[in-house]
């Protein structure tokens, strides 16, 4: 387990020694900031709902961009071979990389707290939905990271990894909107499978165990699948 921390630290640092971290974080902040403040003054309400509503869409393409290199690049350059012949287990590698993205995600979200601070100066801010929103964002980010990691383990090509990861995250985000023509009861099932539905629940400020279990199980299943793929490739 100690090695999974070593791998996590190395991966996390590698984001910041390359331009990836700076580009991804600035684009994330520009997009979320733009869409949030563009309508914020029109609604004239001291809340962050707009910011959180757009988050699933933003995450579904930002996170696969962060995770796409994790396995693909290593397989492609061959550093995979060096890593796996050191005394590490599959689990060390998968968890190490997953938590590196998780840490990155938190760093990416931290500057957006300034939006909350800013809004709180303008009016009475209801902290429930804000705290709920951040819990939801972290959980959803984690499950998208697991999906991205899985996509990256499938191929040595980063672009393919990105597209697979993004498509998968998009489907989870938009599934209920894509299947609007289905009868209500069937739609409810698909809605339950979608990430957006659970995220919007939490971001209302109601942290329900069903939503927590959903995100945790998506992460778990995807990490397990990644582990299987890696084993299979040996």
């Amino acid at each position, binding site marked *: 387990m*100690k*090695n999974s921390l*070593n*791998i996590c630290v*190395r991966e996390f*640092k*590698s984001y910041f*020694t*390359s331009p990836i971290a700076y580009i991804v974080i600035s684009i994330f902040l520009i997009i979320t900031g733009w869409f949030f403040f563009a309508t914020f003054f029109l609604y004239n309400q001291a809340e962050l709902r707009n910011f959180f509503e757009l988050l699933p869409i933003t995450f579904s393409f930002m996170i696969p961009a962060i995770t796409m290199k994790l396995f693909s690049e290593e397989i492609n*350059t*061959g*550093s*995979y*071979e*060096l890593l*796996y*012949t*050191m*005394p*590490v*287990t599959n689990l060390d590698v998968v968890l190490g990389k997953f938590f590196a993205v998780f840490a990155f995600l938190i760093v990416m979200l931290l500057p957006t707290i300034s939006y909350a601070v800013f809004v709180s100066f303008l009016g009475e801010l209801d902290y429930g939905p804000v705290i709920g929103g951040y819990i939801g964002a972290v959980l959803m980010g984690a499950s998208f990271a697991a999906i991205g990691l899985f996509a990256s383990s499938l191929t040595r090509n980063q672009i393919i990894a990105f597209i697979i990861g993004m498509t998968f995250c998009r489907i989870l985000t938009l599934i209920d909107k894509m299947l609007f023509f289905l009868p209500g009861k069937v739609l409810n099932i698909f809605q339950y499978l979608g990430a957006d539905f659970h995220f919007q629940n939490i971001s209302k400020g109601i942290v329900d165990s069903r939503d927590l279990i959903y995100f945790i199980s998506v992460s778990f299943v995807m990490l397990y699948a990644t582990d299987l793929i890696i084993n299979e490739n*040996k």
Partner: protein
Amino acid sequence: MIKIEELTKYYDNVCAVDKISFEIKKGEILGLLGPNGAGKTTTLRILTCYMQPTSGNVSFENFNIYDNSLEIKKMVGYLPESAPIYPDMLVYDYLNFVADVRGVEKTGKEKQIKELADLCGINEVMHKPVIELSKGYKQRVGLAHAMMNNPEILVLDEPTSGLDPNQIIDIRNIIREIGKKRTVIFSTHILSEAEATCDRIIIINKGKIVADGSTEQLKEKNSSDYLIHISLLNAEFNDIKKSLNDISEIKDVVLKSTKDKIVDFNILCKTKNDIRSEIYKKIKNTDSIILEFHTESRTLETIFRELTRES
């Protein structure tokens, strides 16, 4: 120390390694030779637990690759071909990371990295990113990676491929230096390298072992006949050939060239007995002058070619 039994590896339907069995003793420097695609890299990858074989077993003392891969990985330091180190990391950061993963104690870490940097001669590139290094330096960083935390066994896959002659000699010296204390297994297709560094050589072809032994043993074993080269001045080839016919050990006399009254020819001998004195006596009776007269020793090169040639 290391026992390889009936090791077989298939990639889909292609057989890369075909029922290889051998043992490696502690402290041996073993060279794995073979043409490209012979199965050297695959064998080494299985030894280092990077891949699982289709069938067969490898055991390191009491550990085997199926159940104790973590213990084996701790014992083995591995340098893959072309040393694929993370390109964006600084050399020092990389070695630091490797030291952490291989469980080097915090207190001894700096000292160990310094020692390896001295041994591999990478002090001046410690603060450069790996991507900026020349092939030779990258290979040395790879060696330092492999030797981190003093593993008992070192596995090196073509450690000198793509290096210039000076770098090759440097790396070879490092390998010999390490080999004094540890078991080293390395693959190569440069024969002089194997001859210069190894205690023992195994030649693989198409996934099978075709020869196993020290350089001397290999030469001995594969020399059922030998060649004598002679160069004579003022001689007539046909006369010489006729007079040499009396010696029963001679298999054939082959003319190589005639130029300015100098006749060059080879004598193929059936036995290992030295028949040079008989030949000399025959030539002494003629008017010819001997310019050259020597046996051609068979090099590892010719043995390798004979064993691995496409038939």
